[in-house]
């Protein structure tokens, strides 16, 4: 036994473990799907998805008891959630605005009010305002406005309160808190402090809410419903993880059973798992060294892609001839096995060059992983395997296989026919082949989606799909542009295209606007004169409006309202989230509530003919982004295929020999895609990645089934050739069976992603082997 390969392996293993444990950071960031040269809209969209205010929104509802009881519970829950420290704010309708917000609105009312202009404070303007105030005082609302009247006879504060906390800005009230229209659910809205993309943090928040809730409810009948992007992210991840965990257990057991049956030795089973495990670790280390963070998709897809490496030791163990040592077997099969490894290594290398960080990480993972597994199989396994190896012969099975394979060779035309028909069919389907709506891939249940839509409608929470982005070279320029859109947006609301809109400029008007309003405020003497003139015709006492005069005078010298003034309030978080900096550009975002017409909205923004204003369709953009990623994956897979053909040509020293190796697997891949499509499945990125694995394993079947015959036709006596063929058939069958059972198990997942990967790989592996056997020389 040579010790140095084992020593290197162990040292490298220890190194990898240390790097992964100490340095690897994982992320589940959408940014992985972004190309380096992403359009600003896409970058902005990803940012919003990752951490925009709508993404951090938590929608809550209480139900299951009488309205009165629910109202009490809602108040208690809101207090407790606020106290938990996890939320920027919690609102349940008790107070449309916090006391701090009211105070600031009052203080800055003349700078904030769109009504502030010189005419408003002329004698005529004041006369009109006073007349309105008098009517208001005499009305049923009079009792409420009375206290405010001496300092606000022109009704600025009322208008601001109305626009921020009045009807239409939230659901109806019952018992002082928000309720659904049917009065069955008390509604709450909260914004998590934790970023939306941090699923662990989001999970912690939702666990915390579930923990707090029972202590605040008055009876066990009261139920809590939760929804929002964070909840969805947590649910998707947990569903996929639970499914993946459960099904991997089943898959592992199945694979172990098959390999145990094939080898007849538990020890070999363990040895056989070492290369792929080491490969995964090496892949992880390489990615974390090369990129800093490892994306969740790299891990998930990478683990799928290096599934091929499970086969390497299988080829080694099952190709062993009687009385042969593993080293002797290796010497014999290494040229073929080396090609099997190198084709995948170079195929992955092509992906590594992609401009998408997600895709290039995936290439890196698979490159390092497969290379490691190949080297392990070649240099380490023979050293650590027991010298007196007992591998089951399975003579009967082998004999049966030979008969079956001989029968299959008569169907040599089938792969060609499948290849042609599938290629034709796929080309004819064109774009209808693909699933272009990401939502259909979400493992989140339909019920959860409906609940979300229901709560969103009732709460009047901002639409998570659309934003209007207005950009400018400075913060002020962006604010000014968004201010100019306000009249048009109001028209949009009147036309019923959307229920409402939010923009930062309502909370922090641009300095230009504020300064103009400030300049419109008359000096004290003028105002006093105007007020006196206006008062003459009203029954108001002349001296009660002193507070008004003082407030106007104060407002004239007020420093302009800055965003900091709002910090720590819900309005502040709105302003902060809606005014973002992107490099040298500032973007003012306009949130929309209850969009009723997608087409109407698109037409509105297009009709503005303003290159600085664009509609951000988050759903559309993210679909587009995944589509781009998929197309890139396809493109780089083609480069990969080219690299594989080159490797094969060089390895076989004969480019014409490449064709028989590539034909079966190509037929299998196109056949699988066509069959899935015929079954009504729309293909996705996940299918593409799965087909890459099929390419990896299927190519190996072709290599092992066609090479012994073609590589060295005269090297072996006839009897040996027959045995070699037997062994090749047996080992490819074992490899195929283990791949099918491992991935077949995933096909039973409820999550569309795992289902796609599992079904595709299993089907592709079966077809690859069948076609390879059909094309093998008898």
């Amino acid at each position, binding site marked *: 036994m040579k010790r140095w390969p084992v020593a290197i392996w162990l040292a490298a293993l220890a190194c990898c473990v240390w790097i992964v444990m100490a340095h690897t950071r994982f992320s589940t960031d959408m940014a992985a799907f972004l190309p380096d040269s992403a359009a600003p809209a896409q970058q902005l969209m990803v940012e919003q998805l990752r951490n925009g205010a709508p993404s951090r929104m938590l929608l809550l509802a209480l139900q299951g008891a009488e309205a009165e009881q629910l109202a009490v519970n809602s108040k208690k829950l809101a207090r407790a959630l606020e106290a938990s420290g996890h939320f920027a704010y919690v609102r349940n309708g008790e107070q449309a605005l916090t006391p701090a917000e009211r105070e600031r609105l009052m203080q800055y009312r003349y700078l904030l009010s769109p009504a502030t202009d010189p005419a408003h404070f002329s004698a005529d303007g004041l006369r009109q305002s006073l007349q309105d105030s008098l009517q208001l005082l*005499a009305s049923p609302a009079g009792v409420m406005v009375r206290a405010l009247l001496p300092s606000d006879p022109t009704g600025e504060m009322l208008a601001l309160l109305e626009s921020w906390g009045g*009807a239409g800005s939230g659901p109806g009230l019952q018992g002082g808190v928000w309720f659904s229209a049917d009065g069955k659910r008390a509604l709450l809205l909260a914004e998590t402090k934790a970023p939306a993309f941090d699923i662990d943090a989001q999970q912690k928040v939702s666990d915390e809410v579930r923990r707090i809730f029972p202590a605040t409810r008055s009876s066990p009948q009261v139920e809590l419903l939760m929804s929002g992007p964070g909840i969805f992210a947590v649910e998707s991840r947990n569903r996929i993880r639970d499914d993946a965990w459960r099904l991997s257990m089943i898959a592992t057991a199945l694979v172990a059973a098959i390999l145990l049956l094939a080898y007849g030795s538990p020890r070999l089973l363990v040895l056989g798992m070492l290369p792929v495990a080491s490969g995964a670790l090496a892949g992880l280390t390489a990615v974390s060294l090369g990129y800093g963070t490892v994306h969740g998709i790299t891990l998930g897809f990478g683990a799928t892609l290096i599934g091929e490496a499970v086969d390497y030791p299988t080829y080694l163990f099952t190709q062993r001839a009687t009385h042969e040592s593993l080293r002797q077997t290796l010497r014999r099969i290494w040229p073929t096995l080396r090609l099997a490894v190198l084709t995948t290594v170079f195929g992955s290398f092509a992906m590594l060059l992609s401009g998408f960080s997600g895709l290039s990480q995936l290439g890196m993972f698979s490159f390092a992983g497969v290379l490691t597994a190949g080297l392990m199989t070649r240099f380490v396994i023979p050293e650590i395997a027991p010298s007196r190896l007992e591998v089951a012969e399975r003579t009967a099975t082998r004999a049966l296989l030979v008969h079956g394979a001989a029968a299959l060779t008569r169907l040599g035309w089938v792969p060609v026919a499948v290849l042609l028909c599938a290629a034709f069919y796929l080309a004819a389907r064109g774009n209808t082949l693909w699933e272009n709506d990401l939502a259909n891939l979400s493992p989140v249940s339909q019920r959860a989606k409906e609940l979300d839509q229901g709560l969103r409608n009732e709460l009047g929470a901002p639409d998570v799909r659309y934003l209007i982005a207005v950009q400018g070279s400075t913060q002020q320029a962006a604010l000014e542009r968004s201010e100019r859109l306000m009249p048009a947006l109001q028209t949009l609301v009147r036309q019923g295209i959307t229920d409402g809109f939010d923009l930062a400029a309502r909370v922090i008007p641009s300095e230009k606007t504020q300064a103009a309003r400030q300049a419109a405020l008359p000096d004290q003497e003028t105002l006093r004169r105007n007020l006196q003139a206006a008062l003459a015709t009203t029954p108001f006492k002349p001296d009660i409006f002193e507070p008004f005069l003082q407030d106007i005078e104060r407002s004239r010298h007020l420093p302009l309202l800055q965003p900091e003034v709002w910090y720590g309030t819900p309005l502040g978080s709105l302003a902060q989230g809606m005014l973002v900096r992107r490099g040298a550009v500032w973007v003012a975002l306009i949130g929309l509530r209850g969009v009723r017409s997608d087409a109407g909205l698109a037409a509105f923004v297009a009709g503005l003919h303003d290159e600085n204003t664009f509609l951000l369709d988050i759903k559309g953009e993210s679909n587009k982004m995944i589509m781009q990623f998929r197309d890139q994956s396809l493109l780089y897979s083609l480069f990969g295929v080219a690299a594989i053909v080159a490797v094969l040509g060089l390895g076989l020293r004969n480019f014409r020999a490449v064709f028989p190796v590539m034909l079966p697997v190509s037929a299998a891949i196109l056949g699988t895609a066509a069959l899935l499509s015929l079954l009504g499945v729309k293909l996705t990125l996940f299918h593409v990645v799965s087909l890459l694995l099929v390419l990896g394993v299927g190519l190996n079947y072709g290599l092992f089934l066609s090479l012994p015959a073609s590589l060295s036709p005269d090297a072996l006596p006839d009897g040996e050739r027959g045995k070699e063929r037997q062994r090749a058939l047996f080992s490819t069958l074992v490899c195929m069976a283990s791949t099918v059972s491992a991935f077949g198990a995933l096909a039973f997942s409820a999550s569309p992603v795992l289902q796609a990967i599992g079904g595709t790989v299993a089907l592709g592996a079966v077809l690859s082997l069948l076609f390879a056997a059909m094309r093998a020389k008898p």
Partner: protein
Amino acid sequence: MTVTLLAWTGLAHAEWTADALLKALAERPAGQSRYTETKTSALLKEPLESSGTLRYKKPAFLEKHVQIPFEEILTVDGERMTWEKPAAQKKHTMALRDYPVVWGFIESMRATLNGDAKTLQRFYKVRLDGDERQWVLVLLPSDSGMAQFIRVIRISGSKARLDTVEIEETSGDRSFMALREETM
């Protein structure tokens, strides 16, 4: 003799309760009155006089049409309130439950006129003074939001007819409304 007399007056008193009054009011399907209202406020030099008509119809319609000194039409039907100022061509529609205080305030009239005891009790502690010929319905806000603005509402009348509505605000302002029923 004294005992019998006491028992008898007690019995008579028991017959004319708030429930009995509301029941009697509930039997009237609709009605219309002219009113004059006097609002006294610390903000005003002199009381503000206004007048107009008040109409109601079962189950949940109430309209206050101010005609003098300015025109204003306030309509409540079910959940919705409409506020119209014809001179300014302004019309606002809003949901009552968005304005709990205004809602409670309006129910003092609407629920009383419709004899809707349940709704009335939702907003007020209800007490009845006097007898059938001359009664006073005293409404004390039970909700703290409303109690912040309104101290008490007193509605007086005779049998199933309302004569006056008096509102006392916590600010000290008050309004007094006199109603004169019209045959429809």
